[in-house]
């Protein structure tokens, strides 16, 4: 089993599979409503100038998240060539 990394550790162009959310309650629900549910493929699109917020492509939409939020999303990195 591959290691989980924080979503913020992925670079633009890299992809991961959402594995775990470390938030609880309504904050967790918000991320789930935005499409960050276990098993979803997420791709880092681009980071704005100071690295915050970052745009992600997930379930057919581009969603921008702040660093504090993306830090709470743990993903399994997809290596190209897998």
């Amino acid at each position, binding site marked *: 089993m591959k290691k989980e990394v924080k979503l913020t550790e992925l670079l633009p162009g890299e992809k991961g599979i959402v594995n775990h959310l470390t938030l609880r309650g309504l904050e967790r629900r*918000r991320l789930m409503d935005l*499409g960050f549910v276990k098993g979803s493929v997420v791709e880092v699109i681009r980071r704005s100038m100071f690295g915050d917020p970052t745009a992600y492509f997930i379930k057919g939409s581009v969603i921008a998240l702040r660093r504090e939020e993306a830090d709470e999303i743990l993903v399994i990195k997809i290596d190209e060539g897998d």
Partner: protein
Amino acid sequence: MGLTHQSCGSKASREKFHVFTDSSEQPVVALAGNPNTGKSTVFNALTGLKQHTGNWPGKTVLRAEGVFLHRGRSFKLIDLPGTYSLLAHSVEEQVARDFICFARPDATVVVVDSTCLERNLNLVLQVIEITDRVVVCLNLMDEARRKNIEIDIKGLSNELGVPVIPTSALMGEGLDLLKESIYRIALGLQYTKPLKINYDDVVEKTVEKLNKKISFYLPEYLNLRWFSLRLLDGDMTIIEAISQHLKAEFNNTTRRVSSYKYRESVN
């Protein structure tokens, strides 16, 4: 619900959202959906020039309302802000939620993007958890065809328990069927059987307990189960919303009673 839906002071709560219908028989229809799914395109196609825009009362959220006719009946159409959820994570979500919940449209159309159904169905499930008067508008069907996405419309409709109408609003496709479906749902000519979402045993048991505790305080036309679920979420905005709603209803009732008394005393 059916024919009794219109009663119970819903007109007053609609006016709180600045929705003024021409007559008490004019059904109110809300358009909900994720951002960028074609809500405004559907809205424009249905209402044409009979529309105007403004803000939601007390909010800097844009809103459009208009009128469309079908089978000689006039319908008031309200374009809700585009949202991924109704759980009040933002002011837009709060506006959409409060409208569906308290103004209780006679029909709510959820406009979904056929090319990414999975994402869009989240909102559909949230809407059918509040109201059974729902029509799903599967928009951007031309795009779905172009991408060779096939959708089992009948199967989807059976599973959701509400009508599902395919459209390409930009091309004007499917709008007559959409209007017909809205007509049937809004006037109570067709009943739906929305998919009921069951939660874990612990949640269901707690909801039952909460239902018993709060049912006394909620008017029966509001969805008790839904409120209990939100309370369990720890959603404080819903407590604020419900107390405002009840206050408005109360003021309205006392105003009616006192003007009645006034008439009695002058006669």
